[in-house]
Every structure is written in structure tokens, then in C-alpha cells.
């Protein structure tokens, strides 16, 4: 405090022109003591609590003002002031030129010519071979059992010590359309290898956050009807390709009576897998609750249709590690996309 006073005195003596400015600055300099600079804990916490309270009050005032303004605008029949949209990572995602556009001719042509078109156009029924890595343990078999119940027309073969390339040949001979290899590491399923046949692309996913059916509360039991597929947010070219690959695992004619839906939801390059049974219901919603004071429009019930979900089956997340052009060949294959550490540097850049 003494030093500040001296400084004040010095400044007063020096300049006449900047006098007014300095005067304004001086009281600010005196008042600005951060709550974190107070050494006494009780006093410090009291000051901080007061600060927080003030901030909260201010925030509430702002919100109220905003709401009142919009309400007023509505009542007057004018346009309400623009609603503020919070900034999210999805909003501020880096511009990606490979995002598929709905009118892209090239994309559709590509789709016709790609490896999955046979299955997706229902010329062949999908037939899936599930196997594991050489050493399978603990949660692996349980997970595979559940996968078998999710994917219709899937078969499990024990791995033995066969080389993967030999397995691919074997599957080709038996006319499978895709192979799924579940890889276990430290007694937990760790990675999923999706090989399309014949000469389909090979996608290597990292598996995480696996929750088995028995660990889900109030889980449902899936039936054997063909499920419906929901593929969300596969926007870029790469995403589109991966989406089609996943689509080719399932039969293209879902049985709606079974009311089973399998979802692959892509968010920030993580593909979340969910398996639900759904039911449509009617929910009564009372309109005009807010105008309790106005006697009109009371007891007006509006019925809305809602969908209710019951989760059944496993729950896991996938992250694409690499996509290779032909069937499994790590040494000589041509990789379309490989995840490199370089790609993680920006928080707003996603590839699928």
C-alpha cells in the first residue's frame, strides 16, 4: 500500500496532460485484489463465495432479460431476437472437403461399382464368419455369442492356428460375404477386423467400452427377426465407405414386425454401437400449461407419438484404425486410410 501511494505521488508530480487518465487508473489499481491473493483461508473463501454469487445473479438477470425480450417479441407478433446457439465441437468442425453432398453423381457411381453393391442391392444375402485371434480368453467368447445374436446369418468358427490369409481363402470357398475377427488383448476384446469378401476392403477397428447384455440393467432379449439399421453421421467419403461396409453385414430387408433396431452412431470418429427393441406409444401432453392464468386453452390435451427403446444386446464403441483396399495383407496391401498420430493434433478435425 505504501508503495502504491508513493507511485501515485510520483505520477501526480510528473505530467499534466495524462493527469486525468492516471487518475482514472489509480482507483482501479487500488481495488484490484484477486480473491486468490488473500492468505487467510476463511476470508478468502468468503470473498470467493461472494464473487460467485454475484456472477450467478448477473447470469440469471441476463437470462431473464433474454426470455422477457423474446416473450415480448412473440406477443407483439414480431420476430423474437435470435436464439443464441452454443458453440460445440461439431459446430466448429474443421472444414472437410471430402464430405459427401446429396447431389454427388460421382458418389453414386462409386457406390454402384464398389465391393458392397452386390450385397446392398440384395443380389447376395450376407453371410458372416466370426472368429477370434489365436488366444481367446475371458470376455471374448461371451462377446462373440452376443454378436452372433445381433447379426443374422452369422457363424462362429474356432480359430486354431490358421493364418488369417488361409482363413480368408477358406471363407471365399464357402461363399461368405464377410469375416469378423475379434482380437483379444489382456483378456478383453480389443480390436475388430472386418474383412469383406471377395477382395473386399479390410477395416481394422479398435474396440472399447464393451458392455455385455447381462451387465445392462433392464435389458431386453433380442428375437431373431432381421433388424433395422440406423447409421448416423457418416458424412465424409471415408465415412460413407465404412457405413456401407457395416451395412453389408446385415440383410437389407428388415422385418419391421420384429421391432429391432441396430444403431451405429458416429460421433467425432467414434462409432457407437447400440442394439434396441422399440415400441411406439402415445403420450398425452397438456397444452397451455404455461397460461394457467388465462382461462382459455385449459385441459387441451395433445397426443404425441413417441418411441420408447429397450436396450438389448451388447454395447461398444469402435474407432477406425486403418482401412485397407484388398483382403487382409498388412505387409503388401494398399492402405486407403491409416490413422497416424499426426491426425490427433487438432481437436476439431475428424475423418469419418
Amino acid at each position: 500500500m505504501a508503495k502504491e501511494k508513493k507511485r501515485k505521488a510520483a505520477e501526480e508530480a510528473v505530467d499534466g496532460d495524462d493527469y486525468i487518465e492516471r487518475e482514472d487508473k489509480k482507483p482501479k489499481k487500488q481495488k484490484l485484489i484477486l480473491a486468490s491473493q488473500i492468505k487467510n483461508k476463511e476470508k478468502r473463501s468468503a470473498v470467493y463465495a461472494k464473487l460467485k454469487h454475484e456472477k450467478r445473479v448477473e447470469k440469471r438477470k441476463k437470462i431473464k432479460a433474454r426470455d422477457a425480450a423474446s416473450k415480448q417479441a412473440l406477443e407483439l407478433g414480431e420476430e423474437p431476437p435470435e436464439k443464441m446457439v452454443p458453440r460445440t465441437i461439431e459446430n466448429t468442425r474443421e472444414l472437410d472437403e471430402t464430405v459427401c453432398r446429396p447431389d454427388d453423381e460421382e458418389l453414386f457411381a462409386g457406390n454402384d461399382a464398389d465391393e458392397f453393391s452386390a450385397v446392398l442391392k440384395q443380389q447376395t444375402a450376407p453371410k458372416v464368419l466370426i472368429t477370434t485371434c489365436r488366444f481367446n480368453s475371458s470376455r471374448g467368447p461371451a462377446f462373440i455369442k452376443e454378436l452372433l445374436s445381433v447379426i443374422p446369418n452369422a457363424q462362429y468358427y474356432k480359430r486354431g492356428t490358421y493364418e488369417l490369409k488361409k482363413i480368408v481363402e477358406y471363407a471365399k470357398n464357402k461363399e461368405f460375404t464377410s469375416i469378423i475377427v475379434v482380437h483379444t488383448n489382456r483378456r478383453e476384446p480389443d480390436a475388430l477386423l472386418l474383412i469383406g469378401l471377395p477382395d473386399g476392403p479390410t477395416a481394422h477397428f479398435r474396440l472399447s467400452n464393451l458392455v455385455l447384455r447381462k451387465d445392462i440393467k433392464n435389458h431386453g432379449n433380442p428375437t431373431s427377426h432381421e433388424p433395422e439399421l440406423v447409421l448416423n453421421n457418416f458424412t465424409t467419403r471415408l465415412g460413407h465407405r465404412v457405413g456401407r461396409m457395416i451395412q453389408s453385414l446385415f440383410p437389407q430387408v428388415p422385418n419391421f414386425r420384429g421391432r429391432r433396431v441396430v444403431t451405429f452412431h458416429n460421433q467425432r470418429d467414434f462409432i457407437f454401437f447400440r442394439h434396441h427393441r422399440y415400441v411406439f406409444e402415445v403420450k398425452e401432453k397438456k397444452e397451455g400449461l404455461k397460461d394457467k392464468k388465462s382461462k382459455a386453452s385449459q385441459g387441451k390435451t395433445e397426443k404425441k407419438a413417441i418411441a420408447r427403446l429397450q436396450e438389448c444386446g451388447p454395447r461398444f464403441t469402435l474407432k477406425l484404425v486403418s482401412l485397407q483396399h484388398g483382403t487382409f495383407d498388412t505387409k503388401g496391401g494398399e492402405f486407403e486410410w491409416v490413422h497416424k498420430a499426426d491426425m490427433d493434433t487438432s481437436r476439431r478435425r475428424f475423418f469419418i
Partner: protein
Amino acid sequence: MQNDDVIWDIIRHHHCSYMAKIQTGNFCRNPYNVTGICNRSSCPLANSRYATIRDHDGIFYLYMKTIERAHMPNKLWERVKLPKNYMKALEIIDKHLEYWPKLLVHKIKQRLTKMTQYRIRMVKLSKKVREKIMTVPRKEVKRESRREEKALRAAQIENVIEKELLERLNKGVYPDICNYDEEIFNKLLDKNKEEEQEEEEEEAEVEYVEGDYELEEELEDDIEDMGDFLKANNFDDIEGDEDDLEEQPTRKKVKKASVSYPLKQDDGTEKVRRKDKKVIVEVERDEDIGNRQHNVM
């Protein structure tokens, strides 16, 4: 002067830096040792005439040391390249070590055998496909798990799925899904065709009747039971009575029943069955019902 015995004495009883003592015996770490055991006859330092086979990049070399070169450590070991063919290598060994002690030659041939065998095994193994274990730095693992959590929270999966399903319902993707309320059902039909509006009003009337229906149900219970009981004996009387008493409302009830029968499968199956019986009894409105169902499809 080289005196092997003295050297051996010193090495064995005092200290040899190549000696490794294990539970099962003494081993020699000297790379020029033929057998690998710390022995008077196998020690390369304590034998002035000695030979070994060593492996360099998959090629075997025969190394020989003689007492004439003992004073020139730089030029001590003479090296001969051995061919990959086992038999030819044996011949070459025989040629070079012709006048050497038999024990040493024997040991060298044994070593050659062992080395060829493990060379074959190594080549086989390298051709086999093995999984390579790659480690991921912990920082990356943690980063990924953090990002995954945040992505999960941002995704709001259940809401998105529900929205998607409702959208599909509204688009009419589901032709024969059968478990939603008929009023919503009607709304959907409204959106497509206006003809349904008239029937909707009739439906409203049916709703009004519904209350009576519930009351009558209790009566029906008894009547039905009686009906069942009497079916065993007499067929016509009571059923006829039922028809007369409840003809008017049943007509519409039947209509409603026919519509809701396929829809409300889950709750009150007993009710459904009763309605079913009603449908069978009343024949009049069948055509309309049939029509209606076609419209629905």
C-alpha cells in the same frame, strides 16, 4: 610361454570372468567355447590348440587357434567359411582338423549339427506369420478414452435413435407395424387421405359408446360364461338373446373391435378374445371392415 595347466589352474581356482555359475553347473560365456561348459578341455583360454564354429548372419565359420600364433593375439584365430550343406561342411571340418585330437573334432561336429538344426528352425519361424505387438503410449490411451467419453455425451444416442424412428414412422416406412394407438394411426392416415375424416367422426361416436361397453362387459362376463356353459347343452337360445339386446352398440363395437384387434395385442388379451367372438357373431359389417383394412395397408 604358453603353459595351459598353469592358465587353467589360475582360471579355475581364482577368477575367470567368463565363468557363470548356475545351480546345475559351471558354464562358460566365452564366445569361442565349443560346448559352453567351463571345463579343462573346453576352455578356449586354457587350450593352446582349439577350434570352434561360430555363426555370423546365418553362415557358419570354423575358427582354429594354434600354439604357433599364441604370441599374436591379433592373428590368433584362423577362419574358414563352411558351406550351408551339412555334409560338405563335415568334410571340410575333417579336412582341416585331420590331425587334431578326436575329442575336439567330435565336439565340433556336434556343435555343427546343433547349429544347422537351429538355423533351419529360425528360417521356418521367420517365414511363419506372427502377430507383432505394438505398444501404445499411455498418454494416447488416456487421451482416446477422454475423447470417447466426451463424444458419448455429445452424441445423445437414445434421443437421436428415437427421433430417427419417429421420422421413419412419419414417412411411412413401416407398413405393418402393429403396436401404436389407433388415434395416431388415424392421424397418419389423415395426412395421406382425406376420406378418413368421416370415419373418424364415427369413431368418435364409438368412443362415446365405449363406456357402455365397459359396463356391459361385466354383464358379458356372466353371459359369456353362461354361453359357454350352455353351449355344451343348448346352442341357440342365449346367443340369440345376446344378439337382440346388444345389436345396435355391438355393430359399432364390432367395427372398433375389428380395427383394434390387430393393434392392441399386448394388453388385455382376454378382451380381445371376447371381441373376436363378437366379430364372428356379427356378419353385417364385414365388408366395411375389410375395406377399411385395405385402406390401412
